[in-house]
């Protein structure tokens, strides 16, 4: 068997052009061209019913366990149950018995969470020489600037009205931003740093110093 020259094979592979082959390979090149000219590129059309035949075979295949379960879940089923009337009566009686004998549970009313009630409290300090007065306490994080008092109608009197939740509050007045003064009208407790804080008790019925 005469073999093609390696260069002609590379031409057949599409790796070389005809120009790259020498004149001595012209005859072999012609044979190679004839070979490729016989390649049939025409498309092949399969029968239109191929799809149906494949799907018919697919449908005839027994489904796997998972596929059967999947189909069963997704399909509507008609259930027919044949029972004797006395069985229905017995079942109904048994159900009633279960209801009657079941331990009674105490039904509790849902707990009602109420928001703590607020009470308006008026803070008053007589400080005739002060330029600025505020009140600081547990209700505002002991912020000396958060709750300023305003001058009241009477000379030297400072006052502010706050809405405070029910509970016990500690507080003190701050005069001119630096001097902490306990409420002289309220009982106080030592704050541990040599100063006293006043105590205010707020209830839904009102506020009182204690």
């Amino acid at each position, binding site marked *: *068997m*005469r*073999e*093609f020259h390696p260069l002609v*094979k590379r031409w*057949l*592979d599409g790796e070389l052009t005809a120009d790259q082959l020498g004149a001595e390979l012209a005859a072999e090149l012609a*044979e*190679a061209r*004839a*070979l*490729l*000219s*016989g*390649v*049939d*590129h*025409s*498309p*092949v*059309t*399969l*029968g239109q019913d*191929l*799809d149906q*035949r*494949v*799907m018919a*075979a*697919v*449908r005839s*295949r027994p*489904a*796997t366990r*998972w*596929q*059967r*379960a*999947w*189909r069963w879940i*997704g399909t509507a089923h008609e259930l027919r149950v044949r029972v004797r009337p006395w069985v229905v009566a017995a079942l109904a009686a048994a159900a009633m018995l279960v209801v009657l004998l079941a331990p009674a549970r105490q039904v509790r009313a849902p707990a009602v969470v109420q928001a703590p009630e607020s009470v308006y409290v008026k803070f008053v300090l007589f400080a005739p020489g002060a330029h600025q007065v505020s009140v600081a306490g547990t209700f505002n994080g002991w912020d000396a600037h958060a709750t300023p008092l305003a001058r009241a109608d009477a000379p030297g009197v400072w006052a502010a009205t706050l809405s405070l939740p029910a509970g016990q509050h500690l507080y003190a007045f701050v005069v001119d931003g630096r001097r902490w003064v306990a409420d002289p009208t309220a009982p106080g407790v030592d704050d541990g740093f040599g100063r006293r804080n006043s105590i205010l008790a707020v209830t839904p019925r009102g506020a009182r110093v204690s």
Partner: protein
Amino acid sequence: MDRLGARAAASDGDVVRAVLAGDAERYAELVRRYRDRYARYAARMLGSPDAAEDAVQDAFIRAYDQLAQCRDPENFAGWFFLILRNRCFAERRRTKREAVADVSQDELPGPGRADRDAERSETQQLLARGVSELTAEQREVFVLKHVEGKSYDEIAKSTGATVASLKMRMHRAYDRLRAYLKERT
């Protein structure tokens, strides 16, 4: 996007997963998608469109039966090609055995063969017969490269063979075809 649009845009992986989940009817989408893609390959490998149709049909049914073994559902086409390829090789071995005690299959006037040959040029008919004389491996690489227009790299990727071995098969095929054509012209 409507339901039909969503179906049309479904990837191979989506369809494979739906079929595995029990929606067997959706397998028809894969059949429509790939039934013609490899028809010419099968026809050239087996020598006739009728044999190709049987092979493609069997390959689709076999692929359905083994769908759970498709490791990469997005590459269903590549996996299906391997099944079809095995089917073509098996068919070729079977016909070769049968032909041993008989004359060559290609010399027999099969059903519809005269009509098909009438549409082909004399050179095409001659080469087709020459290709049928090649080994299955040689024939496959010739078909994929010169009929389907694939590169060696693409053929290597789809068949798992190395480019070097593919070239070796192809170069032997060139020599055998040259000898076959020379004897008959």
